[in-house]
């Protein structure tokens, strides 16, 4: 029996002329089906690199990623990505941006009507059905990211990858979208790997928080299991002792033990 998703001895070096910089080393991680895992760490610790290796956009220098026992070596819709800056195509409507993915991924297996229904179903899931004919520049940042999430969900990925999906949003919009993501995760049971550097976001959403040490040569420092019952409500959690403990543990890791050295941060 294979683990659902497995990182095995992943290492990554970037070469520039004679100089080789090791970004990641010795990453070993196993993720179960339906699990929501966050990657947290300071800027430059290689979180995005790790996500891009899983996404197939980068090839690791050493080690392999296995998804359902198969080696991951190219991008594909089974590992759909929600990009940090939404990455919607500006010449397509909200509908078109989801449809371009649905038509390609399900062009052979679904009829035209089925694909249309599937696009609308996913837009409804993120509450964007009413704006389907708008173009990306006509909707707000939070709405763009909703469409980005709909596009990724519509591919029915085995793992949903989210690269700091709410990083560019204001606090209220972010809270709103976090709630939406929790709801969708509860409904669909997706396996999710999310990059964040927001401690509250990581603790609120995740089953496990993977904490990365500082780069270069970053690796997994610690993994924290979040044993909070779902559905989680942010208001109730604000006074919850377990939530506070988890939050303190992540903060302690990030700011006491793995502080960014002043020089490296500059």
């Amino acid at each position, binding site marked *: 029996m294979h683990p659902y998703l497995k990182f095995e001895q992943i290492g990554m070096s970037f070469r520039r002329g004679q100089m080789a910089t090791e970004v990641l080393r010795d990453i070993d991680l196993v993720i179960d089906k339906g699990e929501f895992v966050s990657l947290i760490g300071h800027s430059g610790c290689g979180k995005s690199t790790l996500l891009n290796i899983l996404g197939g956009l980068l090839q690791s220098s050493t080690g392999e990623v296995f998804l359902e026992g198969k080696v991951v070596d190219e991008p594909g819709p089974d590992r759909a990505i929600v990009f940090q800056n939404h990455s919607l195509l*500006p010449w397509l409507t909200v509908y078109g941006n989801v449809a371009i993915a649905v038509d390609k991924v399900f062009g052979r297996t679904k009829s035209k009507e089925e694909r249309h229904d599937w696009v609308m179903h996913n837009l409804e899931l993120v509450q964007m059905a009413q704006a389907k004919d708008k173009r990306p520049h006509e909707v707000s940042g939070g709405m763009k990211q909703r469409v980005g999430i709909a596009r990724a969900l519509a591919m029915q990925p085995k793992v949903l990858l989210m690269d700091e999906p709410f990083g560019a949003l204001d606090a209220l919009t972010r809270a709103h979208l976090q709630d939406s993501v929790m709801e969708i995760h509860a409904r669909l049971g997706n396996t999710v790997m999310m990059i964040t550097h927001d401690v509250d976001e990581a603790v609120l959403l995740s089953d496990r928080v993977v904490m990365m040490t500082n780069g270069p040569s970053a690796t997994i420092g610690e993994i924290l299991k979040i044993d909070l019952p779902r559905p989680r409500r942010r208001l109730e959690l604000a006074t919850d002792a377990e939530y506070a403990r988890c939050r303190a543990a992540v903060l302690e890791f990030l700011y006491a033990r793995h502080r960014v050295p002043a020089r490296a941060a500059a």
Partner: protein
Amino acid sequence: MPAATAHATTTATVAPGPVPGATAEIVAFRPPMRPALQRAGEMARHFAGVILPPLIVIGLTLFVWQLLCSEPGARLPPPTKVVSDAWDFIVDPFYDNGGIDKGAFWQITKSLGRVGIGFSFAAVVGIALGVLIGQSTWAMRGLDPIFQVLRTVPPLAWLPLSLAGFRDSHPSALFVIFITSIWPIIINTSVGVRNIPQDYRNVAAVIRLSWWEVFYKITLPATVPYIFTGLRIGIGLSWLAIVAAEMLIGGVGIGFFIWDAWNSSRISDIIVALVYIGIVGFLLDKLIATIGHFVSHGVAAQ
């Protein structure tokens, strides 16, 4: 694009103008005020702000010109004399006395036809080459210096070469238009292809678009604003080239019309033809800009 945005900002600053100062009264008298008085006021402002300045400047220019050229012995005719001399040419653009003695409409149409053919070739070849070159760093590095040098060669410098090659004046004129207008199209298209955000390529990779699908679903739409910048510069250059080329190869066309008028000392006809050429060039530019605006949808708005 710059012209379009400039226009948009001027109207934007004019339109909300009356609102802040007069808010209280407008709320009270809204139904009767709005259609009649306020709109008339807005139109008056628009007239004063946008239409009046060019009218005043044109008027002043004509006035100074008239003053400078009115004294006896002036070498160029004043505006009044231009109009009276060239009256036949101005009022009847559709006359056709056979040979090359035709009205302005026919002369311009002939020139526009040549530009249409030469420029269309340049657009098709230029966009295709630009896309190819933009895909490859190697091709870009190799060809860019050549393009940068060739694009500065003046249109007329190509004419002897193309006459030697084609041994006929008509294809030579088309070739000169083609070769003059193709460079900005190639260069802008290839820059556009290179500037496609990595994000779009990542999206294409994740949903596994084929080479052809990437081309027409991502590359082409993402490059459209750049392509149209190239086309706009290109059509301007081709209109420059046609006049110069026609002066040398002869026949019907607004370029040779000028040369012919010079040979028979019809200075007033030349001045009228210059105005026509300027207006047609301006309209060609606006035409391409308008098409570009519609084709590029929201891309430019990003």
